[in-house]
């Protein structure tokens, strides 16, 4: 990846993070989980997925399924960058006048399937990948999962079935931010060794730093990793990435800040002084 491309991606991700932070008020959003997935989502749409903003229903397009639906602010921001979602619509967040809320839905352009209930879209993605095999297309199917989501048994059903059906057009991406709603994953339901788990299920695994665009470029350069095998990218990330005052904290999952706190957080994002946050931490689960 050349320097210019890298800078462009970093600038895009920065703008997406600004938009995410602006949604963390007046009702709030799942800020920590959105910031951890931002670089992944930006990279996939800008560099990897064959999705034409001018022709979203192109039958040859790639599919992205956001199974970890609560990070949808990162997707909203990315779709604004792509020019498929008007930036003004984000001002309708949580308003009955629009369809912009805490989880993805198909009233938003380019969103292929709704989510919110964890552990559903791995199966839906498997079905789409199966049909592409039956119909004979070259479309690729990407499904982004949270690490906490891996607690759901239905994820592992899909993992077994994708392997059995040799779905090498299917790629899972785990946003491994090391936290689930209330606490560190390893404190509640330990997931490690995660690479070994997926390898044992017959998947080809790549583990990278999910905030490093060079790493991402390498991970997505040559898919599938092996013919007839599904691929998974485990992307180590940081919950709340970009905002040191909330980074990697168990108590900053869902956030609803005041307007002045949002201003401070935007300054913090741009490397200025850290925000002083008085708003209570919220856990909605």
């Amino acid at each position: 990846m050349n320097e210019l491309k890298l800078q462009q991606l970093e600038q895009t991700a920065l703008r997406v993070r600004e938009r995410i932070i602006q949604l963390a008020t007046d009702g709030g959003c799942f800020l920590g989980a959105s910031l951890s997935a931002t670089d992944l989502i930006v990279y996939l749409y800008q560099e990897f997925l064959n999705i034409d903003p001018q022709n979203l229903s192109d039958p040859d397009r790639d599919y992205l399924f956001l199974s970890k639906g609560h990070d949808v602010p990162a997707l909203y921001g990315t779709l604004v960058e792509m020019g498929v979602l008007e930036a003004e619509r984000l001002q309708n967040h949580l308003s009955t006048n629009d369809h912009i809320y805490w989880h993805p839905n198909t009233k938003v352009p380019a969103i292929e399937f709704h989510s919110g209930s964890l552990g559903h879209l791995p199966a839906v993605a498997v079905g789409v990948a199966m049909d592409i095999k039956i119909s004979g297309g070259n479309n690729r199917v990407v499904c982004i999962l949270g690490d906490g989501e891996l607690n759901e048994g239905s994820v592992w059903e899909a993992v077994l079935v994708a392997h059995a059906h040799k779905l090498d057009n299917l790629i899972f991406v785990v946003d491994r931010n090391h936290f689930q709603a209330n606490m560190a994953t390893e404190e509640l339901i330990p997931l490690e060794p995660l690479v070994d788990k997926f390898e044992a299920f017959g998947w080809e695994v790549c583990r990278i730093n999910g905030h490093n665009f060079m790493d991402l470029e390498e991970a997505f350069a040559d898919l599938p990793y092996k013919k007839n095998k599904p691929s998974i990218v485990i992307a180590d990330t940081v919950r709340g990435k970009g905002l040191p005052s909330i980074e990697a904290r168990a108590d900053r999952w869902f956030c609803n800040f005041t307007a002045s706190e949002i201003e401070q957080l935007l300054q913090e994002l741009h490397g200025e002084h850290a925000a002083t946050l008085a708003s209570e931490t919220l856990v909605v689960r």
Partner: protein
Amino acid sequence: MYEELLKEMALADERIVVMTAENRALIRNLPAVLGKRFIDTGITEQCMVGAAAGLALRGRIPVLHALASFLSMRAFEFVRTDAGIPNLPVKLSAFIPGFLSDGNGPTHQAIEDVSLMRGIPSMQVFAPADAQELGLMLPLILQSPQPAYIRICHRESTYQHQTEVAIGKAEVIAEGKDVTLLTYGFMLEQTLIAAAILREEGLSVGVVNMRTLKPIDQALLLRLATESDLLVTIEDHFITGGLYSIVAEVLLKHQQTAKVLPIALEEKWFKPARLPEVLAYEGFTGKQMAEKILGYTTQAFQPAIEQTAFAE
């Protein structure tokens, strides 16, 4: 017969894929015929339903062949969320519902399935009474753009159905002034016996095969409520949420009253056994039901009930 029907329909329409969660007993010959359009996901009802939504998203019409209890309950949230919310044409072909699970035990008794499935906004709920009727209904069900739950009963029957079928229309087998028996699916067999016994006792007896439980034939129910002195709902389902509830909802919605006697499973699972013994034990033979309605015992003859073939 069921297998032949599915085969014909799938061969005639490229969009149809047949899926199963390893319930192959009744469809052993389909893999060879359908090739890639036969998908066995193993014992994964949740994944199968989610994957069906994915296939439907791409324009397929998935027919999911699995046990009624696991399709309607194990995978319920997947049905509701992945097929129901986006209104995708996922067709749940639910085997051994109600009494047809005979000796399996309560884990396999789908006797709340109508209640669950009709609670999903876009879902259509069908209950064919036998093989002939299933054959009449299946083309309509597959043509509908909505998700569907089919309470499969494909037993052979000597009853010849009126061949005109329509979604949301019941089959009126007989009209009766004194009592009208309302039923669906497998229970039609015994309901016809009950009706014959009631007639021998001098009553004017109507029989209605509901065929579709959602949408429901409201106009018919409202008419029967005024034209028949007593309505009897007969179902191998919990009393909550099935046909008795549906009749109550329709009457209340239209501020109409009627005498309604429910024959259903009340707050308990049924005794697992061979099918004829289940019916006799639970009081669901034609003769037992007729006597319950009459309030006295008779010397009527109860024909033998055919045992089901093992379906799994």
